[in-house]
């Protein structure tokens, strides 16, 4: 088991390297001279040259990458063009609220998604199934920003139950996490349903029933455990959807997280911040998938750890 985890971590390194190279190249892919972009529209040639030296853009590209990686390991993500603050400082108080928001959304989406999916499969073609699947297909069709605005309109503006934005206290997390989790919840519900229906057709379920197991134990001990395996994988893959969605949801709710910072930085062309935020998002995503892989292997006894 330990060896398997180690193997997966080692396998991840080349991917992380390529991702770091791509995000490094990001600033070089923008049309035009990055030094000129950084120096601003009205900058003189001298200004541009000075900025170019400051940013190390006069160095050969491989050297720039080595410096970039070296700084990265020291925790130095560069300096924001907009605020002049170190990027890592700007991330410090925005990182955790975003993490809480995504985890909270994933948490309720998993629980409710599994419940709806299971009920739909058990009551196939009866009203709980129809209700569950109508909810789910609507959930995947709702644009997050619109759902968020409707929730603000009803629960903040009209009823005054929750704040319209910010991240102070648990109340400000309620509406954003409902908005962010709705799509995932629906996908998981649909997926749980079809996965469970598939498992319920298997021979070992028939055997279980034939030997007189209670239906509840067939369902929980045998069917659910086996259909959970693909659901976990999907949940991990959909985590990327959450990270992308968080950008939109944080903008709707003026939530002081990483996603909102990214969008504000794009508007200002604050490239060091954009670059580091993208890198951080993808590292987060890769790590989550690693955790999912490990979880998957503990759930599925068929996987061999060689």
């Amino acid at each position, binding site marked *: 088991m330990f060896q398997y985890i180690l193997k997966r971590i080692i396998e991840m390194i080349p991917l992380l390297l390529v991702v770091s190279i791509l995000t490094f190249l990001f600033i070089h892919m923008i049309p035009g001279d990055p030094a000129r972009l950084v120096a601003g529209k009205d900058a003189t040639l001298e200004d541009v040259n000075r900025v170019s030296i400051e940013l190390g853009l006069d160095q050969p590209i491989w050297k720039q990458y080595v410096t970039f990686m070296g700084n990265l390991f020291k925790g130095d993500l560069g300096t924001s063009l907009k605020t002049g603050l170190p990027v890592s400082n700007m991330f410090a108080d925005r990182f955790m609220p975003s993490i809480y928001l995504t985890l909270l959304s994933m948490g309720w989406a998993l629980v409710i998604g599994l419940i709806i999916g299971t009920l739909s499969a058990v009551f196939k073609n009866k009203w709980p199934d129809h209700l569950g699947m109508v909810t789910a297909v609507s959930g*995947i069709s709702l644009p997050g920003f619109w759902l968020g605005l409707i929730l603000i309109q009803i629960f903040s503006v009209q009823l005054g139950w929750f704040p319209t934005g910010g991240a102070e206290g648990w109340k400000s997390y309620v509406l954003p996490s409902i908005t962010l989790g709705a799509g995932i919840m629906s996908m998981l519900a649909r997926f749980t*349903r079809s996965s469970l229906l598939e498992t319920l057709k298997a021979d070992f379920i028939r055997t279980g029933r034939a030997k007189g197991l209670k239906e509840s134990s067939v369902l929980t001990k045998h069917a659910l455990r086996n259909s959970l395996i693909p659901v976990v994988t999907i949940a991990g893959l959909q985590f990327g959807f959450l990270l*992308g969605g968080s950008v939109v949801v944080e903008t709707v709710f003026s939530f002081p997280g990483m996603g909102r910072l990214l969008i504000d930085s794009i508007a200002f062309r604050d490239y060091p911040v954009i670059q580091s935020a993208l890198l951080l998002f*993808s590292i987060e*995503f890769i790590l989550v998938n690693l955790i999912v892989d490990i979880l998957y292997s503990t759930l599925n006894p068929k996987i061999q750890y060689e």
Partner: protein
Amino acid sequence: MEFTSTVTEKKQVVPKKKYSPVREFWVNFKHQKTAFFASMFILLLIIIAIIGPSIAPYDPYKPDYDATLQGPSSEHILGTDEYGRDIFSRILVGTRITLSVSTSSVLLGAIVGTVLGIMSGYFGGWLDRIIMRSSDVMFAFPDLLLAIAIVAVLGPGLNNVIIAVSVFSVPSFARLVRGSTLEAKENTFVEAAKSMGAPHKRIMFKHIFPETVSSLIVFVTMRIGTAIIAASSLSFLGLGASPETPDWGAMLSMGRDYLGTASHVVMMPGIAIFLTVLAFNLVGDGLRDVLDPKTKNE
């Protein structure tokens, strides 16, 4: 024609009546009542996309400062926005933008992804490894974030949105098609073609490609829904259509400030996006049940 015929041939293991393959598909699809109804709605949208600008009661760009932020009335059935522009007319004209941006980006991604996926599955070896590892790298950037990054590099605008959305569709299509190719490769008719000395290109596109079409059709339909949401999200974030364009996402973004006072400015384009995406998802579900029952909910 050829695509559908090969698709249904698989199903003809238990033929009920002798229908032509297209007819059989049509009969099966009509039984999917929700999906059938949804496809009629999409047909309506396509008609609106074509004739929308000529049936719009008002000029979608022309401001009318005497009639700003009016609620729905007999004059303006969906109300007016902050410049007094008729929302109904803007939604009608915006249909073309929504449908063309989403379908072109998905088709672009599908074409590139399909070619890569077939080559990857057919040739295997180092080419397969390179293509699959590159798609792993692309998957490491969560999809909407990848699109945001691309737009950040290329600059905002609808054309760049199309590029961004199609780029993030490529790896999913490549994986899907690679999977079907690996399966199709095992067929005896592929082996027969090989042994007769057919060139690779011919085997890939004449023999293997038709085998992947049924799952492709399903996936394209589903992805159009995703693409509409992605493109309107980008417009909402100010990275897509410019604010005066009657793009549904941009309209919603502009209306945000009037949520408390004139919520219809936000509601109407939102309903339009929701219904359109819903229709594509329902048709996708129906097509999957008819064409490709194996790949439920992928």
